[in-house]
């Protein structure tokens, strides 16, 4: 009926290579999230700082990250900055690109979370003699991270999906890159991409479900 014989065996034979690729994909996503969260906290502090240059810096970052395609950002992280003589390996480029994107979106999430934390929390902290920074660190931050935990797992899923854009900056060791290389080699496009789709699905599902379990564990209050 299809004029095409599916050769799933051929694709399955390549499964070990693809799973290695999946590990790299996870590695990128996890690193980019860890860095992204750290940067987003910093950007959030900048936004709250009241200092105009810092606020402008944070805002510019957030708006560019949110208003241009991720593909564009990743391409820029490699070829764009290279125009100024700064060279990053594909791995570092994709990491920077996704981290930049993550940080932008997470900062925006944090803003929403902060709005949900009553004013009196910070005031209560300050009233106890905590400094502004201590009050942020011990009272606001933990609550902010809790409120934005589910958005963060969503962002993690996006980070996984965004790794597929690494091919534009020369990545071929991640799941999508490996799949594409195998495709070039064998022309078994459907089998390979379908298999990749299944792996991606399983990874992202694990993250979503894992995120919920962790949330239930972590946030007993």
């Amino acid at each position, binding site marked *: 009926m299809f004029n095409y014989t599916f050769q799933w065996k051929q694709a399955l034979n390549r499964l070990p290579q693809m799973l290695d690729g999946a590990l790299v994909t996870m590695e990128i996503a996890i690193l980019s999230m860890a860095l992204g969260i750290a940067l987003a906290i910093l950007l959030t502090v900048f936004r709250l700082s009241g200092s105009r240059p810092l606020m402008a810096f944070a805002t510019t970052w957030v708006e560019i990250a949110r208003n241009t395609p991720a593909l564009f950002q990743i391409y820029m992280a490699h070829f764009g900055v290279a125009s100024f003589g700064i060279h990053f390996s594909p791995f570092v480029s994709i990491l920077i690109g996704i981290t930049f994107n993550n940080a932008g979106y997470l900062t925006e999430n944090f803003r929403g979370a902060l709005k949900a934390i009553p004013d009196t929390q910070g005031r209560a902290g300050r009233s106890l003699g905590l400094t502004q920074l201590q009050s942020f660190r011990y009272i606001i931050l933990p609550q902010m991270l809790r409120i934005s935990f589910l958005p963060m797992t969503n962002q993690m899923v996006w980070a996984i999906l965004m790794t597929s854009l690494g091919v534009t900056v*020369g990545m071929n060791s991640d799941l999508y890159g490996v799949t594409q290389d195998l495709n070039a080699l064998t022309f078994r496009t459907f089998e390979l991409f379908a298999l990749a789709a299944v792996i991606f699905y399983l990874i992202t599902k694990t993250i979503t479900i894992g995120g919920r379990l962790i949330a239930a564990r972590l946030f007993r209050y």
Partner: protein
Amino acid sequence: DKLDDIISSGTLRCAVVLDFPPMGMRDANNVPIGFDVDYCNDLAAALGVEAEIVETPFPERIPALMSGRVDVGVASTSDTLERAKTVGFSIPYFAFEMAVTANSGTGITSYEGMKGHTVGAVAGTYEAIALEAQVKEWGEGEFRPYQTQADVFLALSQGQLDATVSTSTVAQANVQSGNYKDITVVGFAPFDTDYVALFAKRDEYGFLNYLDLFVNQQVRTGRYDELYEKWVGGEVPKLMVPNAYR
């Protein structure tokens, strides 16, 4: 069969890769041109139908063919045995020699000189597969595949890559264009000649037969030389493999 279908439909749809100068590219009006484009036009003329160029990025060539969106691939496609398990190839219609192009700052002067450097090529191409294997064998240096020929040369002139292996035609064209700073062709890559063929569905013997004959006729009639002169220039590569059939 397919051959009849094409003739009766009145159009021949060719999958062509358009970021692979001078085989496929666009002119100043962004109209497709190049060796492969002309070749497709010739094929259509022989069949007595209209040619339609379908721009096809690398991973979409097979789905485009299998889903019936194109009839034939005129896409400088290397006729590897692995790929032939999936599609049917004609006899070779073109052959590439591979050249090494290096960033002037690196001091690379030969193929061997690339050892230990960061090198790259267009992802999934014949030369990329060979070069990646070579880098593994050397055991030092790094291999990076980029999505398009343009990205490879961009990375090369930015210094992100120290050298690349590409078809000599592309290398010459890009160096001469003057668009890229600091790059020079430093020699040939000792890869097997990259024979490329037309491809169609594996079981369309009638059509594949026709394609074989068409390629043969292009050489016989001198059209192949003519096109080569037009798009590449210089000594025309032999399409016959010494000491072998076909």
